[in-house]
């Protein structure tokens, strides 16, 4: 019995952000100590649907950036890690992939800012893409590293012996097993990019206003209602992606 209660308790804790956000997004004039005595309203959600909405614009920007970044990062990381796994012996190759991944993105942004300025990429969409790739590609490389095991290598040799080229190898030997992992990696990179704040804010000089940056702006304006609303919007793609790919997760998440 206590076990069931514990599980329910855990579930509640995991859901609590969602509940708090919903609560706040429908509230207004939330003065102490009111819990339910203050007015509840749909006005904030209505501003979401109004045309000049900064929210809509930032959703669009965030989706574009995250989709592009995760697509490129997953693809490139996949093949780069193959190169490392097959053609190198030293473990320092993989280790060095960890460095950009582990360093706090905002600190990396601070140190690299000079180069971004010189290339004229600060405050631009392209600049943000590049900056986010610099942290997601290493992640992707690390993620796929253990996929390129001897099993896959043997299969590739098999295809080669049977006269196939790299494309055939891809289609028959590699992709069938990699599919699930590719999806999970895409999801992870999407999350990294989607949630990114410090680096995006610094390199973007606040000009590229992603949804995450908007949430911070509302927080600093002490507007908890809009911050909650934006926060909810921020949760939606990850939840959707998680739901759609749930089977992949259960099977595949621990291969890395």
């Amino acid at each position, binding site marked *: 019995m206590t076990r069931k209660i514990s599980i329910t308790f855990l579930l509640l804790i995991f859901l609590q952000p969602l509940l708090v956000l919903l609560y706040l997004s429908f509230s207004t004039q939330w003065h102490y100590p009111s819990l339910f005595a203050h007015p509840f309203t749909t006005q904030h959600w209505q501003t979401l649907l109004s045309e000049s909405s900064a929210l809509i614009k930032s959703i669009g920007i965030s989706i574009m950036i995250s989709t592009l970044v995760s697509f490129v990062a997953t693809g490139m990381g996949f093949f780069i890690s193959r*190169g490392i796994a097959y053609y190198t012996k030293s473990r320092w190759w993989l280790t060095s992939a960890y460095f950009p991944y582990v360093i706090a993105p905002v600190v990396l942004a601070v140190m690299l800012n000079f180069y971004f300025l010189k290339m004229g990429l600060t405050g631009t969409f392209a600049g943000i893409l590049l900056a986010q790739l610099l942290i997601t590609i290493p992640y992707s490389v690390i993620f796929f590293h253990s996929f390129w095991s001897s099993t896959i290598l043997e299969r590739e040799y098999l295809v080669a012996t049977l006269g196939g080229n790299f494309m055939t190898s891809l289609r028959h030997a590699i992709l069938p097993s990699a599919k699930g992992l590719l999806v999970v990696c895409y999801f992870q990179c999407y999350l990294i990019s989607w949630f990114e704040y410090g680096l995006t804010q610094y390199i973007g000089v606040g000009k590229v206003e992603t949804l995450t940056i908007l949430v911070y702006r509302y927080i600093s304006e002490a507007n908890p209602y809009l911050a909650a609303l934006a926060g909810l919007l921020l949760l939606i793609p990850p939840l959707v992606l998680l739901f759609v790919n749930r089977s992949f997760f259960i099977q595949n998440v621990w291969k890395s």
Partner: protein
Amino acid sequence: MNRTMLKNTVIRRSLAGLFLLLCALPVVLAMGYAALYSVGLTGLQSDGFMLQHWATLFQGEFLSSFLYSLWIAGASSALALATALAALFTLRKELTDKRVYRMLFLPLTVPPVVIGFVIYQLFSGGGILSRVSYQSGLIDQISHFPEFVHDAYGVGIILAHLFIGFPFFLILLLNLYQQNNLDELEITAASLGAGRKDILLRVHLPVLLKGIFPVVSLYTIFFMGAYEIPLILGQSSPQMFTILILEKLQRYSLSDIPVAYAMALFYAIICIGTLSWLMMQYKKRWN
């Protein structure tokens, strides 16, 4: 065979080149610039080579900030691991149920900014829990509510990290448990007469801890470099290391800027050093 070998070398070279370009070069460039700036060799206000910015690094607010960040990182990881282990040993059967297992993935979908915001709205003086306490008579004044955010121990920050770390570690532990067939080991050990506690301590724990060590270390480094959460929940002094770096960079006194670069470089060196050390401990894994 010759043509394939040639093609292989070309591919090999270009992949290596690509890797270096995208992963290694930025780090080198970043640290290079930071190094130059911090010793006064570049930057508009630079006066020539000087080590004094580095000297200031090991005293006063930098030192306390660094120690504070270490505390937050260590406490967050330790707490997350402890609670994950506790959940593993008490609720393992329930957790292997697919539906329950799936719920562990929910916190992964929550970004740091949202967790920070939610913890603030829950635990701050004017927050939800404070209001509940007030209305239920536990406190009679807002100032009597205990300090969970902007406090000296970083409780709010640690709670936020716990939210992220606990489910992740638990998922890992469950997988490790299965991969290492700890079930069977348990049966074997029991048949040899070992008590429950013994099994836990001598059989399960060492295997699990060894397996999870790399990820826990990684997470500790992540927690040390936390930025978004402390931005919302942290206190004035000492501040988290990354926040102090940004403050120094953007504050009123222009002479603080080289110090900020020195701090950034220092932090990068610590990350790289720790990683390298970890890698060397795990030689076997990569063969």
